[in-house]
């Protein structure tokens, strides 16, 4: 038994028969090396365990998290949680604790990434910076390990661990910026020179910019843009609580997307960077969200599943009782076209490297406004002919991927970071029939 599971068992014993209880002991480390103006300026690391507790007695529930794992402090924390629960009204939607079920066998963990040194991260930064001669580089390289032990008074016992490494950055000229990105469960997979070279190439290509009039344009979207779209679809649409509440665009069984599109959430994929159970302790596997353009499912934790008369899909997150459960390990199907081939099919349109500051105007239609950033290029007669200034768009993300709107899917699927902070999505480039740009750099 691991030290963390021993601590979880100790907490269960300390609660005893005073309440139903679930406990999660989370540990690991996070280190992030940040650079700007082509040198490392902020370089951080942290370690430590936390204990998250949820107690329930007669449907009266309270929860809490503490980083103070000393036994005396934990006794006080436990007693306080039980006391707080006793003063609550009965939670009519309390689904009870998870029951034992088979584990999903996976271990997306790389010891070398978990133990990566500051020097190893700095070496990646150096390679990224060196790829942009005469340019200003900025970005970060991070490594993270997460180890979790979960136990509850129904007899569920689960342990999981995962690692993640990210290199993300831009190169800048006086008039332009270009971005590059790579992520993997293993730091050793990241080719920092190649990521830096892509960013430098985009920056160089974008140095001579011109204005373009707002309007409807055919687009080729790089994976970072597609990741942003998928994060918004997941958080606002495939969110079981939002679906229950009637705030989601999702119509189960309907052809809401182009028939070329398939989306799955799958922690069992070898490329995933996640553990095999959720914050409720429910085992998590593969969830088909969209199959050939037909919306198939939303993600649930135990609470939203109970409200929907469904079964938890294993997507509970911290705070999902309030914000809802949503998919976080999403894979979009790849096509067979290279990015160059996607661009070659466009008579007149735009290539966009990244979106920026997207915000939802209407969740039921997924109308979103946002901007382009770090590389926006005009496509004419099948080739990129020049860079354009950043643009604002106001566009329904669902309609943008709707039936007949996907004109090509790239073969360049990879982990791409969204700007929304909800994480990484494994997605390719997309060629779309139209995107509604509502403003230029000058409004």
């Amino acid at each position, binding site marked *: 038994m691991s030290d963390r599971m021993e601590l979880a068992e100790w907490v269960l014993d300390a609660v005893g028969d005073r309440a139903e209880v679930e406990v999660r002991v989370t540990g690991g480390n996070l280190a992030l090396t940040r650079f700007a103006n082509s040198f490392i*300026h902020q370089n*951080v690391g942290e370690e430590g365990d936390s204990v998250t507790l949820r107690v329930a007695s007669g449907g009266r529930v309270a929860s809490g998290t503490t980083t103070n794992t000393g036994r005396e402090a934990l006794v006080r924390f436990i007693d306080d949680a039980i006391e707080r629960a006793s003063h*609550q*009204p009965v939670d009519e939607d309390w689904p009870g604790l998870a029951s034992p079920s088979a584990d999903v066998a996976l271990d997306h963990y790389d010891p070398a990434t978990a133990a990566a040194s*500051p020097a190893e991260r700095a070496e990646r930064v150096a390679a990224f910076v060196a790829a942009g001669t005469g340019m200003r580089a900025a970005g970060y390289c991070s490594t993270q390990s997460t180890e979790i032990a979960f136990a509850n008074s129904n007899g569920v016992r689960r342990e999981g661990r995962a690692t993640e490494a990210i290199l993300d950055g831009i190169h800048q000229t006086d008039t332009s910026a270009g971005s590059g990105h790579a992520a993997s469960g293993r730091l050793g997979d990241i080719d920092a020179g190649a990521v830096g070279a892509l960013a430098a190439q985009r920056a160089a290509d974008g140095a001579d910019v011109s204005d373009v009039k707002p309007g409807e344009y055919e687009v080729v979207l790089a994976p970072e843009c597609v990741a942003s779209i998928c994060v918004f679809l997941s958080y606002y649409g495939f969110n079981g609580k939002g679906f229950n509440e009637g705030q989601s665009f999702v119509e189960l069984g309907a052809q809401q997307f182009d028939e070329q599109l398939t989306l799955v959430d799958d922690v069992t994929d070898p490329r995933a960077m996640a553990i095999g159970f959720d914050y409720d302790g429910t085992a998590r596997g593969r969830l088909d969200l969209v199959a050939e353009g037909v919306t198939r499912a939303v993600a649930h934790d135990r609470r939203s599943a109970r409200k929907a008369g469904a079964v938890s899909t294993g997507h509970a997150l911290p705070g999902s009782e309030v914000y809802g459960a949503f998919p976080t390990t999403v894979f979009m199907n790849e096509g067979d076209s290279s990015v160059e081939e996607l661009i070659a099919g466009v008579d007149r349109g735009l290539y966009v490297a990244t979106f920026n500051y997207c915000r939802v105007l209407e969740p039921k239609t997924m109308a979103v406004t946002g901007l382009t950033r770090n590389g926006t290029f005009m496509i004419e007669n099948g080739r990129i002919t020049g860079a354009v200034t*950043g643009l604002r768009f106001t566009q329904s993300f669902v309609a943008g991927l709707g039936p007949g709107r996907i004109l090509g899917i790239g073969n360049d699927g990879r982990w791409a970071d969204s700007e929304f*902070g909800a994480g990484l999505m494994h997605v390719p480039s997309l060629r779309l029939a139209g995107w509604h740009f509502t403003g230029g750099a000058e409004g």
Partner: protein
Amino acid sequence: MYDYAVAAVEGALAAGATYADARVVIAATESIDVLNKVVESVNRTETAGVGVRALIGSSWGFYATAELTDTDARRAGEMAAEIARASALVPGSPLELADVPVVTDSYVTPHEEDPLEVPLSEKVDLLVGVTGTMLGVEGVALARGNITSWVTDKWFVSSQGHRIHQRLVECGGGYDATALGERETQRRSYPQSFGQFETGGFEVVRKWDFPGNAQRVAEEAVALLGAPELEEGEKQLILEASQLALQIHESVGHAIELDRILGWEAAFAGTSHLELPKLHSHRYGSELMNITADATLSGALGTFAYDDEGTPSQRVDIVKDGTWVGVLSGRDSAAIAGLPPGGMVRADNFNRLPMVRMTNVGLLPGSSSLDEIIAETRDGVYMETNRSWSIDDKRLNFQFGCEVGWEIKDGKRGRMVRNPTYTGITPRFWGTLDMLAGGDEWVHWGTPNCGKGQPMQVAHTGHSAAPARFSTVRVGVKA
């Protein structure tokens, strides 16, 4: 607790740091969420640990541990120095720190009722009550409420001799009603979207009269479903104070952060349209525009006695009569720019590196009132309460959506309009500021969710504002 911070600093210095500081932070957060009279969550988070910052050459190294022992704190200091030293693989010019007074002091946020001592049952009853009132209005599908309280103790020690303890007390909350149509949702919030938060105790929640506004908020949400959509065009735009507060936050507050201006946030949060050589000459807005960053305002959410570098809180002019005159800075960024340090560097917990953050960046009040502004508006729209916000990485091109609008025709408030949006370019927009309210309508609005940095940090900031009018603005942008 000072002992752990001292051990961390000693560990960093022994490992080669030229300067080091450390914060022991013990923080408690309580959050209560109610949906449709059902308590969804009663959550309490307690964190404790020490974070130490070591300067070697051109880089900060930072390390944090949740283990509060002398040994772990000292090791954290050594780790911070090791991390800083690794930065020399990709070096820049050596960092220097602007001078600040070395003090020993303590501070407690003035407050009447410790928010964590107020019975949970009272808070729950309040939220169950207001969500019940809203749910009683026909057409309301979702009625949500939240109360959140923070009590944070920080012990700061630097290798220059600082010894500062602060207890910051913050509290607030809010609620909203959502009505569902076939193809859209409409929401009204009170006191503002995401709630209103201030420094102080539970008296903050009491003074906002939660029960007294629930019926109106719910009725407006339902009425919005049947209201006409705001037509696209150029109009006079009147902003309610909380929306103006967010406008200040996004188009002024972030743009004046010196770390952004220096390029330190270029890859993530972005840079700024402002250039230091134009300080004291750049025209930011009309002569009615006077912005300060004031961390000394009583009750505002960005108020404290010392920042997380030990610099005293202060009031700094940012925009004076429409001209840009100041920045938000810390000891390192101020030294580079040749400016005095502004005391605006904060971290959101023990495990995050302090960085430049807004304090209370607000628009000083004018002499008019909302009623007067409306009375003097010929063809405009009045918008209340933020619903969406988006702005580019230089803080120039923005688009905001509000929850509700009303047409203003010939000095009178007309029909309600739904989905009101407006868009603009920062200096051009602020240049059209032509009427500004004051008096009791000037409020210290709080923003509890300002994201910045990698790893992500969330800061609590304040933005004083009163209703204002802008003469010519593009409104009604649609998908």
